[in-house]
């Protein structure tokens, strides 16, 4: 005889021990990091350096939001690793095309220089 599944129509909300103060601190941190990104946009540095700095700050912002606003830090470590590794792997596999992008800019081979129009 097979046991009936444990069906619970109403699952209680998860309880998190984080204090209100902690949420406010993280919120302020996110605002400060966002402001830093805006300041970088007005700095007189090359676009590549600007991109690297903004992306670095965006990753920190996303990490804070994931861990504390979405409570991933409070979940079981196995679940945290599942989400991070699975997502990280999916995003990493998308990076293969960058070399083609630089090839378009440099114009060799297959493209007209500085136009991005593919030759027939």
């Amino acid at each position: 005889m097979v046991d009936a599944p444990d069906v619970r129509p109403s699952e209680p909300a998860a309880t998190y021990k984080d204090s209100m103060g902690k949420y406010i601190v993280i919120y302020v941190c996110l605002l400060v990091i966002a402001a830093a990104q805006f300041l970088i946009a007005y700095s007189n540095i090359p676009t590549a350096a600007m991109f690297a700095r903004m992306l670095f700050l965006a990753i920190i912002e996303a990490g804070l939001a994931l861990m504390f606003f979405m409570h991933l830090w409070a979940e079981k470590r196995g679940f945290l690793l599942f989400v991070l590794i699975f997502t990280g792997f999916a995003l990493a596999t998308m990076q293969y095309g960058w070399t083609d992008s630089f090839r378009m800019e440099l114009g060799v081979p297959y493209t007209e220089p500085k136009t991005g129009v593919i030759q027939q």
Partner: protein
Amino acid sequence: MVVGLPPFSVAAKKMAVWLFIIADAATFAACLLAYGFLRNGNAEWPRPFHSITNVAIMTFVLLTSSLTMLLGVRAASANDKPAAFRFTMITAVLGIVFALLHVREWMGLIGEGMTLFHNPWGNPIFGASFFTITGLHLTHVAGGVVALIAVGMKYNHGRYDGSDLEVVGLYWHFVDLVWMFVVPLVYLLNLGH
């Protein structure tokens, strides 16, 4: 036979939302990567933004909405139903404000002649990529607002419980998280100096 134990001890609906978030993260990442690819491959990429005031306000509104969502879930966790409902509705209102600011910005750009297939500053790909990425995000915000209102109302009437607010909150935080990447890549790197 042991049944009924969810993977990672995470409730089924929360797991479903997390899987959706992972898939959606891949969707946005693909769009942003395609955008980066095109921007990198086109030397004369337009820089049409001369003011960051609107996008700064939008960012502030969205970050604040994440905080109010968090407070709503926290209140639901403490069985404070009126506060949970109130914070959820405040979050929805902030989402509407964000969407209106976004539409206002779009109308300004359209007024300057930018469409999906044309822009007055040169490369037409810019219009297509800009409207695709920001449009996808705006669609998520609009969907999130509808979900917040629907789930909030049903929570208030006792048909949904705090765990439902929690999962819609996860989605809302994700929408906020995506914006953290859209702003620097699509707006700030295209700021005209």
